[in-house]
């Protein structure tokens, strides 16, 4: 289509030359594109291999359940694990209802061509592209300095309680970052719910909301779950958004309230690999931490893939 001369030239050449050239061209293209995928797979294998080889020997119950000791050269990662789980739980509580509501509005209520729907969609895809460090700036400027300091002025007479980096603000910042993940996954799930079910429900006299709540959402649960899992995986690994909104690099005690600071697995890796006075002494602990974070995110991503493929298979069975 773009170049009609090529097939024409093909016809002019003798059959042997043509066959040879086609064979060579095919091999060249297959080999060069095959090399690309091979390189990508090798990179992945090297990263995983390096982390597993150096990190596996560190994993022990003690590593999971004790705090770092001796200037982070000994001990475990319990506070970082605890902080990550606490932050991710709070984040999930915030992001799932909002994300699901947005997706339900987009797919079940709004007319697809209205300017509002289009604006929401543009906002969602742009939100997904905002650099993670800008989320950090936003969290500091909005949650800590505006909301938190505002709460202090109203409830605590200007005393600093909420107007500082804290678990809650980090979790909310991360919730804003993962919002597009939940929205996109939920909407995909809603799209896959057959129209017949909605029509049957409406025809039986159910209201729009009853249809959504009793018929559509139960069918979309796997999709919502996929989005939630992916959001959790993202939240466990991202560091930049929480750098200024609540993470601490070492704390002697676990966070006890929402306005405490917390330790985080991803940040722990960053700190151990850049701010350690003795790199060789911290290395084993560092590799162990990286392995834990990798296993955590891979298990979560794998779970998301499994849930999603099951959902797709089931829906194909229905259709």
């Amino acid at each position: 289509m773009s170049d009609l001369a090529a097939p024409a030239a093909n016809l002019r050449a003798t059959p042997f030359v043509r066959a040879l050239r086609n064979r060579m061209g095919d091999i060249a293209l297959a080999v060069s594109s095959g090399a690309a995928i091979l390189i990508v797979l090798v990179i992945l294998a090297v990263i995983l291999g390096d982390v597993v080889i150096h990190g596996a020997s560190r994993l022990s119950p003690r590593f999971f359940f004790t705090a770092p000791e001796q200037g982070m050269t000994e001990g475990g990662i319990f506070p970082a694990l605890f902080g990550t789980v606490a932050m991710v739980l709070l984040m999930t509580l915030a992001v799932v209802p909002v994300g699901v509501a947005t997706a339900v509005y987009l797919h079940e209520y709004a007319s697809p061509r209205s300017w509002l729907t289009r604006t929401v969609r543009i906002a969602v895809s742009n939100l997904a592209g905002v650099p993670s460090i800008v989320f950090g700036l936003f969290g500091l400027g909005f949650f800590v300095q505006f909301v938190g300091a505002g709460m202090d002025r109203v409830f605590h007479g200007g005393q600093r309680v909420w107007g500082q980096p804290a678990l809650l603000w980090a979790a909310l910042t991360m919730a804003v970052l993962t919002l597009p993940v939940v929205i996109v996954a939920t909407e995909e799930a809603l799209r896959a719910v057959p129209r017949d079910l909605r029509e049957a429900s409406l025809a039986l006299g159910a209201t729009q909301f009853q249809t959504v709540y009793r018929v559509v959402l139960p069918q979309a649960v796997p999709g919502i779950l996929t989005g939630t899992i992916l959001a959790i995986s993202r939240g466990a690994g991202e560091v930049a958004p929480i750098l200024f909104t609540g993470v601490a690099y070492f704390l002697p005690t676990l966070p006890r309230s929402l306005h405490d600071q917390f330790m985080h697995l991803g940040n722990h890796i960053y700190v151990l690999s850049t701010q350690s006075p003795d790199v060789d002494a911290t290395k084993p602990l560092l590799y162990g931490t990286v392995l834990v974070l990798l296993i955590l995110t891979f298990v979560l991503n794998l779970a998301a893939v499994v849930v999603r493929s099951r959902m797709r298979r089931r829906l194909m069975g229905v259709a």
Partner: protein
Amino acid sequence: MSLPASAEGALEGGLPFVTETSHLRHPSDTPRWSSDAVSSSDGSIPMTVGGVDPGARVSVGAQRARLVLSSPPRWHRIAEIMIRVLALSAIAAVVLIFAFVAREALPLFTSHEVHKEVTLRQMWTAQQWPGYDAPDHIWQPVSEIPKYGVWPLLVGTIKVTLVAMLFGVPLGVGSALYVSQYARPRAREIIKPVVELLAGIPSVVLGFFALMVMASWIQDAFGLESRLNAIVAGLALSFAIIPVIFTISEEAFGAVPRSYVEASIALGAARWQTILRVVLPAASPGIAAGVALGLGRAVGETMIVLMASGNAAILSGVFSESVRTLSATIAAELAEVVFGGAHYTVLFYLGTLLFLVTFVVNSAGDWIINRMKRRLGVAS
């Protein structure tokens, strides 16, 4: 729908038309409008009427009558309003992000206090600093005389991004081409999730790998002077953007209509000619979108460059020297600045720049994707 005889019998037997929900098969529930109830074999919902006739079945018609008589609970209305309000959250988030990041940068334009230390003009033009021979662009915010020349950071960002794109685009597009055109379906089903696995690696782990392992390998291999530099950071960054480019390109290749390929083969073109001259051009908008989104990611990515670039703000075109990017500068310096001070303001200004640049790049990518989808929708 007429009532089955048994149901009519039940009604005549003194059953109130508005039945109690506790008589339904799902005692805890108002009528459960789920697929299994609706698709029950004869279109009726089995229900037990206490004491009268355990086997009685009341048709859907009777159920409906009940719904007409009782209005849905009030919280349904409230929930619907909540849905409409929460749906605006994404718009609110984007607007608030811009507003609050820009708000903290505003003093750079208006405050005399800040202007004593830095002005926009000083940031963007070469300045004659004491102790230097010629006017120069220098980023040195923590020193006797703070210097806020942004060009070293800008050039650093461009250098790292360039390296990342140089590796990431061919590898991402090449992989997508192989998977969509040559790989067998079984192999494709394995390779795709594996590449998505690469996307799942947190950027702090890629940064760690670049810093602890790759940097030494590359230094030994090429005999570079500084261990952390634009090449190491750019390579690590390319690992982060390859999955983005791969996924979108693969989708674009897959969306090329079969008829194009068949027409090309029918005209006597070889397979490679078909791929390079028919499939590739047809998929090019999608590939461009993937590259744009990858670019947006590369410009804004923080942890990888923070850990692997060396963070020296040097204005030079040499790729083997340490670099400092916009994102890494914010991450490294914001924790130690005075709130509301000149340095703080400047860092938020850099954040605003970063937001605007990625906003434009990502919007371009989305625009291309949407246009492609619409065109393919019309074509098929």
